């Protein structure tokens, strides 16, 4: 079993921008096929850089990176990674229908003279169905809610039939109910399609929502720290890694001594009225 290539493998990867300090420092990571990994990190912690390297968009790093056993650039041309970008990067006033958004992913290599054929069309419909977007397939994206657009972007990522799904800050601007549905959708895709899933976020609530499904949590701040997450994302785990930056990660979420996975099931506890508990968290780990 150990001979199969990992879905994503980073071996001692470091990266620095020419004008700045180290963004990634000696990052090693091995994601097994079918694993669900959450990566949590503060803004500026190197998440975007990590993703760009993984997607084959950024060179100039030291160390070794393999995606499905090949270099990230080859993986990109093979369509091994389905990428779900931050939703706010897309232009929502754009004159395209939901179906056209998914077609972008499905037909990106279709020659110009071809209309795509029925196989591609049925692939598009299949992806819309997988994310539960069939009912609004013909609507313009400007008329959709944040959660609906999010589903479309996932459908577009699934269209090239990838084995790895990478999501970058997927829940920004989505309300609590939407986040819950989103976590369920990911969980279903993970189970049904046997996908490897990497979810990257600065927002502990995103991972809290998904962490009951994650096999492991990694925390990224220049270096990676891994934590098995049998009980979800515990405050102790987070506090260890974000000693200096807890406030920005937690926002208005309280940190006290219970697992974060519980936190999302008790919605009334979400905005804790007691500021003392927040201070407790930021000062060193709710211990």
């Amino acid at each position, binding site marked *: 079993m150990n001979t199969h290539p990992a879905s994503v493998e980073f071996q001692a990867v470091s990266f620095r921008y020419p004008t700045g300090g180290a963004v990634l420092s000696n990052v090693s990571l091995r994601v097994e096929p079918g694993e669900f990994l959450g990566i949590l990190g503060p803004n500026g912690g190197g998440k975007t850089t990590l993703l760009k390297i993984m997607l084959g968009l950024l060179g100039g790093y030291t160390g070794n990176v393999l995606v499905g056993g090949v270099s990230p650039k080859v993986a990109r041309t093979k369509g091994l990674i389905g990428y779900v970008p931050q939703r706010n990067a897309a232009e929502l006033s754009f004159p395209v229908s939901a179906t056209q*958004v998914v077609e972008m992913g499905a037909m990106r290599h279709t020659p110009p003279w071809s209309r795509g054929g029925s196989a591609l069309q049925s692939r598009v419909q299949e992806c819309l169905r997988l994310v539960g977007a069939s009912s609004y397939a013909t609507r313009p994206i400007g008329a959709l809610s944040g959660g609906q657009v999010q589903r479309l972007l996932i459908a577009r990522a699934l269209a090239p039939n990838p084995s790895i799904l990478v999501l970058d800050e997927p829940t920004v601007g989505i309300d609590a109910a939407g986040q819950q549905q989103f976590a369920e959708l990911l969980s279903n895709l993970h189970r049904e399609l046997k996908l490897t899933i990497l979810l990257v976020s600065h927002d502990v609530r995103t991972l809290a929502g998904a962490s009951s499904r994650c096999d492991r949590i990694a925390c990224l701040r220049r270096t990676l720290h891994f934590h098995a997450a049998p009980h979800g994302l515990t405050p102790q785990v987070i506090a260890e890694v974000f000693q200096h930056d807890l406030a920005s990660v937690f926002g208005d979420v309280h940190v006290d001594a219970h697992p974060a996975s519980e936190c999302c099931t008790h919605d009334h506890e979400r905005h804790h009225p007691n500021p003392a508990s927040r201070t407790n968290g930021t000062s060193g780990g709710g211990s």
Partner: protein
Amino acid sequence: MKTIEYLTGPNAELFRPAIVAGIAIALQASLLSVPVVLRRLAFIGQGVSHAAFGGVGLAVILGLMGTGAGGAQNAGALALIAAFCIATAIGIAWLSGKGGAREDTVIGIFLVGAMALGAILLHLHRRIGAAGGPTPPVEDLLFGSIFAVTPGDAQIAAWLTGAIALALWWFRRPLLFWSFDEPAAEAFGVPTARMKLLLLVLLAVSIVASMKLAGVILATALLVLPGATALNISRRLGVVLALSITIGLIGMLGGLVLSFETDLPPGPAVVGVLCAIYALAWPASRMARATQRTESLSEVAQSSLSRGAG
């Protein structure tokens, strides 16, 4: 009506090229205006069209564009100006991309720099009376002129329309993906840098094609107004493209008629009509948006109702 008189009278040959070129330019620019507006390239277009003035100065001082210039020289002048515009477009894209400068700053600098160069060269040409006959009037260069458009210009504009339409069709999928969501398109393997370059080159080419008729300053109007108006009215890509072409053609032909009737220069007349259409379509756009909002609200209501029932 003067228009009919001009187009059927003994001097019709002088007016017809402007009509043919006008239709060709309206078609190509209306098509391009949709990605230009969506990709927010309106200001870069302004920079490129003003840069054309620098190219015009070069063409004039080289004797390619004076009133005495022939057909071959005219084609040479257009090629020179096109090269100048494309170089400007690439320069702006490069400096603001890899060069790390702010795009609006770079455009501002290129715009005035090229205008200054053109003004200096035209001034020199007038003073030393160089090759190619008398210096063309600056007002014609800036705001366009019916009579500056030769049959050769009209022919070139028609060919360029075909080339631009073909390029847009050929690259429609990567162009659409790139316009919609650049970072994701890149991650999906779309050559985004090449798409931007392609659109900038097409933009520069179209500006050169419309320069004589609309003038350097107003050439970009057609590359912004039809698409902007159409996008205000609809959110369906096919409808937007059809509307944009229709609006472009109405603006161009209406503007030319206005120019014939009132002796206005064609550039300002066309731009005036296009601006009027934009303003008239404003209430329609508010209505379209309101309808869209109601639709999505009613859908949310329905889905929450069905959830409540289940």
